[in-house]
């Protein structure tokens, strides 16, 4: 019996650590693939170079970095207000039956495959932008709109949980002073839930930066730094997905290096989210 216990414990430990070692292996693999070219081209040249023509020896990914920032920023600008409104409505205003209807609907939204979002964007959004606003239609705006919808469930549900976690006494204390419902939400509930909401926004941001398929389908993928929301754009993730299939040699290494940059950005975001949420808990 003793031996059995020992075995189970070992197996569990191994399994628990396998996820950690997977992360380590992935990191190792990406870095091993990308670091040589970074060393050869120079980090600065790689990050700040504006020309991406890997088959002819130009390895500048600034257009893609700018693209990721544009598209993610646009998604946040469009998506966060809707997500916040949704979370506030669900937690502070909606009656129980309405909440029971909307919450699962949101979770369903999170379960739709990204290629479906991309497809809808491609057949509806892109022509709409082309006709109404001009340009090719494949654009920062189209990608931002699609991503805004895609981050909605994440930001909403994390913010909702943060709002729910605000003690009911804060609301009563505020209402008892003659505050209206909205004043109570704005001056008492939202500040108390601030760190949780911020963590939700950062998680949504991570999702937006990482999304690939839907973005490829609607963004146009030109390796130019966009100057208007109607310009086509290529993100870091799109860059890898589009070219890895046929890349070889240094081109392949440059794509790995793109992965390194992406990896670091997302790690950074997650650390910030952890820190922000942790600060809220410790208070």
């Amino acid at each position: 019996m003793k031996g059995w216990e020992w075995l189970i414990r070992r197996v569990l430990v191994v399994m628990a650590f396998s996820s950690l070692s997977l992360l380590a292996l992935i990191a190792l693999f990406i870095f091993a693939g990308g670091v040589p070219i970074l060393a050869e081209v120079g980090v600065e040249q790689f990050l700040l170079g504006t020309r991406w023509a890997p088959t002819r020896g130009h390895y500048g990914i600034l257009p893609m970095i700018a693209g990721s920032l544009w598209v993610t920023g646009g998604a946040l600008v469009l998506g966060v207000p809707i997500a916040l409104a949704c979370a506030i409505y669900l937690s502070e205003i909606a009656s129980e039956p309405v909440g029971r209807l909307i919450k699962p609907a949101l979770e369903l939204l999170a379960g739709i495959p990204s290629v479906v979002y991309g497809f809808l964007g491609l057949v509806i959004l892109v022509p709409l932008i082309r006709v109404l606003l001009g340009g090719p239609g494949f654009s920062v705006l189209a990608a931002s709109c699609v991503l805004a919808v895609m981050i909605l469930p994440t930001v909403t549900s994390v913010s909702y949980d943060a709002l729910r976690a605000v003690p009911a006494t804060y609301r009563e204390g505020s209402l008892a002073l003659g505050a209206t419902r909205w004043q109570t939400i704005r001056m008492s509930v939202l500040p108390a839930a601030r760190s949780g909401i911020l963590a939700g926004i950062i998680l949504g941001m991570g999702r937006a930066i990482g999304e690939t398929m839907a973005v490829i389908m609607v963004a146009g993928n030109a390796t130019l730094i966009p100057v208007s929301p109607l310009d086509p754009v290529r993100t870091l993730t799109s860059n890898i997905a589009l070219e890895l299939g046929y890349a070889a040699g240094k081109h392949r290494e440059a794509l790995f290096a793109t992965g390194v940059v992406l990896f670091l950005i997302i790690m950074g975001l997650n650390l910030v989210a952890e820190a922000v949420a942790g600060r809220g808990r410790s208070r």
Partner: protein
Amino acid sequence: MTAKVETHDLKFWYGKVQALKGITLRVGTGEQLTIMGPTGSGKTTFLRCLNRLNDLVPGTTREGQVLIDGQDAYRAGADPDALRRRVGMVFALPIPLPMSIFDNVAYGPRLHGVRGRHLAETVERSLRSAALWDEVKDRLGDSAFSLSGGQQQRLSIARVLAVEPEIILMDEPCSGLDPISTLRVEETVEQLRGRYTIIFVTHNPQQAARLGGRVAFFYLGELVECAPAAQMFTRPRDRRTEDYISGRFG
């Protein structure tokens, strides 16, 4: 003495459970009434009917009248926010909002548009009235959570006073406090007497006796009797009152 707060046959249900069984009470302007009774006797429910905080609890029913200055608090078109500005409430557990001491007291006045120097004056005056000013005047910017329990409760009182209400409801404000902090809060109530109409709820007969004034004894949702403290604690009319104040139950 004119009636500031008046209830007529006030009944209240949480779902099917009846918490108030027809309470008729009058509180005069500037009077301090103490409501005494065991847990579950409907004291808190009664208070929360007066400022309509019970409106927020789903699945409740109310019957009977609440009159503030002779006006029905539940009449059609009555504004509960405006009512709560006139009828302040201090809760059993102090609830500092997650902000500085100053911002806590300034919360109410800011809602109603007070700004700048006038706001600072209001905060100081309220903290003085709540007998807290001398203890916090040098650290108004600190988080309200840095105060002790007794100080937090006096902060809650200051916050209510800052809105300049006419009526103050106090729902067992000393239940979480040590005897010394309790004494400080009772002294504060003493100082407020006459300037505000105060309804003070406690389960503690000794506290009701110390506060004096008129005492109403609630039991299982009924108003058993209401009499000046001196009379209630020496010659209670009802057997249940006698049992409660002598500690035989509750």
